[in-house]
């Protein structure tokens, strides 16, 4: 009896795992048949590319991965690519190393990577380059110069844009609070570094509080409520994330305090809050990373595959939205988590966030 149960169990689970594998396999085979049909039409270059992603834990990353996917599908139709792979390490540097090696096993001609850890992924990237694979690192960069190219958005610049706005709007003098991202993340440290570059130029700006609110609405709200309760009169808040600024605005409104200048980030949700509070005298700026950075990295990789020389470091300019530009970017029909500096069409965005 025990044995029968056990055998049934094994059979059941294996079926499920096989099924999962088969689902994946069938979509890939579709890709291949697509490739074959393309082959007969034109002789494209038919590269295989891989995207070694480290996480899709937030909507920016989801949208960024989607930009890559749509760009690949377009390039497959154009006959430039034959196949693409996406791996995801869920923030685990060790898993990302093995993901990267899996992409090498699949004989990718080019791999673009956004790294869970700047240093940890360097050895494996160098190994791939030694084998003649084009490696382009973007967003969260790897810490080695021995790769084909890098594409970055400048974290420091992001921090500086927000901080300069804060300094200007309070006349270079006053008490401010800083809401940082996750302690230890390259992005958070870079943005904070940028902000400090600016604030250090203004001796009269006093930083009364600096907290890692992890880009999280709930955590930021607790911090700002605490500051409001402590009786400190803040003049401005420098925040490095849209959700955190949104939380700060809500905390101020709930406490019945008049709004002070706060820096934000280019998400649809934040633009909504900003637009709603424009009449209350709320002023902000939002620097934003374009989500199409993955597409830019892919284009760089393909240029390199085609034998062109590419820049060692291509810095994609941070977009920035001011009080007067809101209507150009804000789309009330799309969800809050949508990032407005994008190449995706509204339909594609709806598809992702459905």
């Amino acid at each position, binding site marked *: 009896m*025990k044995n029968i*149960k*056990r055998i049934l*169990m*094994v059979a059941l*689970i*294996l079926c*499920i*795992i*096989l099924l*999962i*594998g*088969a*689902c*994946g*396999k069938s*979509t*890939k085979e579709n890709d291949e048949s697509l490739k074959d049909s393309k082959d007969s039409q034109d002789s494209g270059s038919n590269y295989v590319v891989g995207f070694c992603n480290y996480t*899709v834990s937030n909507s920016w990353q989801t949208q960024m991965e989607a930009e890559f996917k749509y760009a690949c599908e377009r390039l497959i139709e154009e006959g430039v690519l034959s*196949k693409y*792979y*996406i*791996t*995801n*390490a*869920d*923030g*685990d*540097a*060790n*898993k990302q*190393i*093995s*993901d990267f*090696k*899996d*992409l090498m*096993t*699949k*004989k990718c001609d080019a791999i673009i990577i956004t790294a*869970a*850890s*700047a*240093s*940890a*992924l*360097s*050895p494996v990237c160098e190994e791939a380059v030694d084998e003649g694979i084009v490696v382009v690192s973007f967003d969260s960069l790897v*810490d080695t110069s021995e790769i084909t190219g890098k594409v970055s958005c400048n974290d420091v610049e992001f921090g500086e844009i927000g901080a300069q706005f804060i300094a200007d709007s309070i006349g270079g003098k006053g008490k401010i609070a800083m809401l940082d991202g996750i*302690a*230890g*993340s*390259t992005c958070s*440290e870079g943005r904070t570094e940028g902000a400090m570059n600016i604030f250090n130029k203004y001796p009269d700006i006093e930083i009364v509080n600096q907290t890692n609110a992890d880009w999280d609405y709930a955590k930021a709200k607790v911090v700002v409520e605490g500051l409001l309760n402590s009786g400190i009169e803040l003049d401005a808040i420098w925040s490095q994330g849209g959700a955190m600024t949104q939380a700060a605005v809500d905390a101020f409104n709930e406490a019945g305090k008049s709004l002070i200048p706060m820096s934000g980030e280019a998400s649809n949700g934040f633009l909504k809050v900003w637009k709603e509070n424009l009449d209350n005298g709320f002023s902000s700026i939002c620097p934003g990373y374009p989500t199409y950075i993955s597409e830019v990295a892919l284009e760089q990789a393909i240029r390199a595959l085609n034998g062109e020389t590419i820049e060692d470091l291509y810095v994609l300019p941070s977009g920035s939205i001011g009080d007067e530009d809101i209507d150009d970017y804000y789309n009330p029909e799309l969800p809050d988590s949508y990032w407005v500096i994008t190449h995706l069409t509204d339909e594609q965005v709806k598809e992702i966030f459905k």
Partner: protein
Amino acid sequence: MTFKVRFVNHYKRRRDIYNIYALLLLFVIISSILDKDFLTLRNLTNIFTTNVPFLIAAYAQTIVILIGGVDLSIGACISLVTCIMATIGTEGGWWSAMPGIFISFLVCAVLGFMKGILITKFGIQALIATLSISLIIGGFSLAILDKPGGNVSKEFSKPFSSDISLFIICTIIFILIWFMLNYTKFGKYIYAVGGNSLSAYSAGINVDVVKISGFILSGFLIALAGVVSAASMRSGDPTSGEPLTLKSLTASIIGGASFSGGKGYIECTFAGVIIFAIINNILNLLGVSTFYQYIAQGLLLIFAIAITSIQDK
């Protein structure tokens, strides 16, 4: 112990091992049917070498589970070791990494001792004690390295994390643990204490000493996992080890280790780790979305636990 009882025990033990290796074989067969790149030397080497820290961490977890505990601080300790390795002796020949290695082993052994003391002498549950230790160590790691970085001497890390040396390290470690658990008094004590600490106590075994020693031994393994991890990343990372806590737990349980203690085999944990690694690998090779990897991992875990509990009935 009569011959019959001994034979039955032997058979039970063999059955656990046969089951898990049969499962492993099935996975290998299915995977090689699904993707032609799976059964290549290169891919099999990758599966093994990229999971060495995971493998050693799982051994550490298995030993703790055997003595009836659980260690939720394994990941944090590994992160700490990578931070230590990346800040001490960062330049120079292979010997420059030695002070870092020495300190790492010392720190992990002391931490293991502390965990053991908290659990045995203060009577704190293993779950709580190791969770608190994990938080404290996480803070220390961030204090040493606030973001991934630092450097581990290339002269040390390149040869140390090469495929061949990883194979040698894993083989030696496996044989040592396997020998210790099966053929030494200490190994028998570990199974006795985990199985039933009261009867172990009445049989004259110093339960507390065995538990504390188990945690110290597990500490040494954690340090080794951290050193391998630091060498393969050639740097430190204050958070890189975190996923290993749950992964090591999962692999131990897939391998049939029981939370009630006293049951589990090192050779099964090895198979558990490799099965876990194969799932990720094959789904990557097939280009299946990562989300399904979690589903597969979850199913595997439920399956493994169900098997163990059916067998225990």
